[in-house]
């Protein structure tokens, strides 16, 4: 695999291969010396155009545990603030010959675009509201650990689906792994035509008890300013996952960071059903597997770089 741009580009076999390798890497993270030489001498560049703590540090740890060199490039405090375009930034950084660029951008399709401008392998760490493929992979990894298989499982994704790249990648990945997916949220935050993903749509939590897995999305404060919902209080009254709504055998997931008291009550965050810290831990090993996959996995099959002229943006 040359790049990881979206879940939509993967097959079930791809996902299973990456997660099997992640499972093999998991043992590394439990050692006293948490390092293997798999990517020694390789350079991984983190290019983050949005604030991110957990995803960026997770990629950084993953690269370091594989002995790669890591350079972090955040948009703030850099040439980007001086008005440099994405293309010019990528061309400049490419001159340093990175082997992989991990990119997060507020714009859909940015990772694909960058893939056309550089010879480095590209890993999409979130492009606008489009996709966040490593999040979906780590969530599938976590559920495999917890449930064995996703086949036939019923997964509810609850909250602001419209503005969530996590929702898009996860619906695709969960469906690909054989799960049934239901999305649930305020009608103003369920985008038109989401059924085309092969999921069901609900506007209330009435049938939440049917779910094996409840995946709560982060409710962002800025959505209040845009009047998508009347108030956080009303949102919580209708969609908060709390002790009353969450069953004892259901698995609770959240991509973090959690707004306690909004999409999740404090009690369920701290409950045994919650696997939120497992997700974080899975993040490192899955990203190790992804970096290994694009940098060493299919080394022989790696095609020539794309021609110098990409599609005109």
């Amino acid at each position, binding site marked *: 695999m040359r790049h990881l741009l979206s879940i939509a580009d993967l097959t079930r076999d791809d996902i299973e291969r990456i997660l099997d390798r992640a499972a093999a890497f998991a043992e590394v993270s439990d050692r006293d010396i948490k390092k293997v030489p798999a990517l020694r001498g390789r350079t991984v560049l983190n290019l983050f155009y949005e604030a991110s703590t957990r995803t960026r540090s997770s990629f950084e740890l993953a690269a370091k545990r594989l002995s790669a060199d890591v350079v972090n490039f955040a948009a703030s405090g850099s040439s980007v603030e001086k008005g440099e*375009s*994405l*293309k010019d930034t990528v061309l400049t950084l490419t001159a340093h010959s990175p082997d992989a660029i991990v990119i997060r*951008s507020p*714009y*859909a*399709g*940015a990772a*694909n*675009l960058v893939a056309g401008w550089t010879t480095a392998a590209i890993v999409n760490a979130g*492009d*606008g*509201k*489009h*996709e966040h493929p490593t999040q979906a992979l780590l969530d599938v990894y976590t559920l495999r650990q917890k449930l064995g298989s996703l086949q036939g499982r019923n997964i509810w994704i609850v909250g602001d689906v419209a503005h969530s*790249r996590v929702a*898009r990648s996860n619906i695709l990945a969960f469906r690909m792994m054989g799960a049934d997916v239901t999305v649930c949220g305020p009608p103003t935050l369920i*985008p*038109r*035509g*989401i*059924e*085309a*993903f092969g999921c069901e749509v609900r506007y209330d939590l009435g049938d939440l008890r049917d779910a094996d897995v409840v995946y709560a999305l982060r409710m962002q404060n800025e959505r209040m300013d845009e009047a998508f919902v009347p108030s956080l209080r009303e949102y919580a009254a209708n969609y908060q996952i709390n002790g009353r709504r969450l069953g004892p055998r259901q698995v609770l997931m959240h991509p973090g960071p959690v707004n306690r008291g909004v999409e999740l009550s404090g009690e369920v965050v701290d409950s045994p059903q919650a696997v939120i810290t497992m997700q974080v831990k899975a993040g490192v090993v899955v990203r190790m597997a992804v970096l290994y996959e694009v940098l060493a996995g299919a080394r022989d099959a790696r095609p020539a770089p794309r021609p110098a002229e990409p*599609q*005109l*943006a």
Partner: protein
Amino acid sequence: MSAAYGSHIKTPAAAGEAGNSARLVRAPARAADLLLRGVHVLDPRTGLDGARDVLVRDGEIAQIAAAGSIRSPTDVEVVDGDGRHLFPAFVDPHVHLRTPGQEHKEDLETGTRSAAAGGYCAIVGMPNTSPTIDSAPILGALLDAAAREARVPVGFMAAITRGLHGSELTEMAELRALGAAGFTDDGRPVVDAGVFRRALQYQRLAGGVLALHEEDPSLSGRGAMHEGAISTELGVAGIPSVSESVMIARDCALAEWEDARIHIQHLSARESVDVIRTAKARGVQVTCEASPHHLTMTDEDVRGLDTRRKMNPPLRGEPDRQALIEGLRDGTIDCIATDHAPHARDEKEVPFEQAPMGTTGLETAFAACHTDLVVPGHLPLALVVEKLTSGLGLIGLLVPTIATGEPANLVLVDLAAEWVVGESGYESRSENCCFAGRTLQGRVLLTVADGAVAYRERSIMLSAA
């Protein structure tokens, strides 16, 4: 012919329109002397459809006769028309020439050269320039520049509101007297219904059609493509079809109330076609246009997030495209206009959501419509030619006609020739063409605009006798 102002161009005063002084202007050019021999002439308005010899003398159509019957005078260029079609040249009421202020995208010379290469004999530029065309000095300077630089006759619409801010009317009467082809805030709607109503009332004094870019900004929001399953899949904010149709419904109601004349630009949605069909049936004085890209592409074509396919209004769904085609067929849609909107390469070489809206279109309009509408049998060739030649007649400017005594406004086309869009570059300064890389069928070989040869494809020079 006058050096500055194409005297050949007839500007029939539109019925009921006060002070029609709209002007089309181009640089001085040598009047053509041509014999197009054995060419298949198709003029949907005169009904002429068959092989003829067409003789152009001193820029006028001097004679139309049976194929092979005209003996070539010694001082004319003879063009072999065998296997080729001759239409009235196309006209476009909606292009962006980016001048003044954005000449890095396009200027009068490159824009009109692009038009000539697409088979156009006259075009009308939009006023969303920098500064806006909203005062007589700016319009006057632009007409003067066009009289030096324009390869085909060009007119300009002036803004409805100062600076396109939507609040104060421009000095429409003065602008009209100076030659404004009409008024538009294109690129933006006139959001305030009260302001728009005053513009409709003022039309009784100033004349000139009000051409309208229709969308409700509160519904479009930050949308970058058609709202539907594909925008949802891509995670790109959508522009719903109703953003367009509700504004068209509002403005048709206001135009009816004030008995005013409006023209709706770039229809994209099925709902909009329905609204206009109903309004026309009620007798509202409304005309409208559709663009080649909306007639031939859909939001499926946006899946790759190619910014050349980002435009406003956005490419919509297949049912919308079918409704536009039906609208052309039943007469609801009056003309095809390109909304030629050049942008520099680096402006478009950014993520989709950041990119400016717009595609170039002058050089591909006929070929795209021919390839996707005529060749598959959706529309007859004559209808497409009619819709490509009617846009300036709607605003009282020009209806190119192939008839003896008419000024030569002609386009010679090879309907069988296939070409790859962009393969040998563009005449436009910009290359943001949504059809780039596509193989289209139908090639413009020669354009005669207001009596002068404005474009000739290389092969035409070789075959000249």
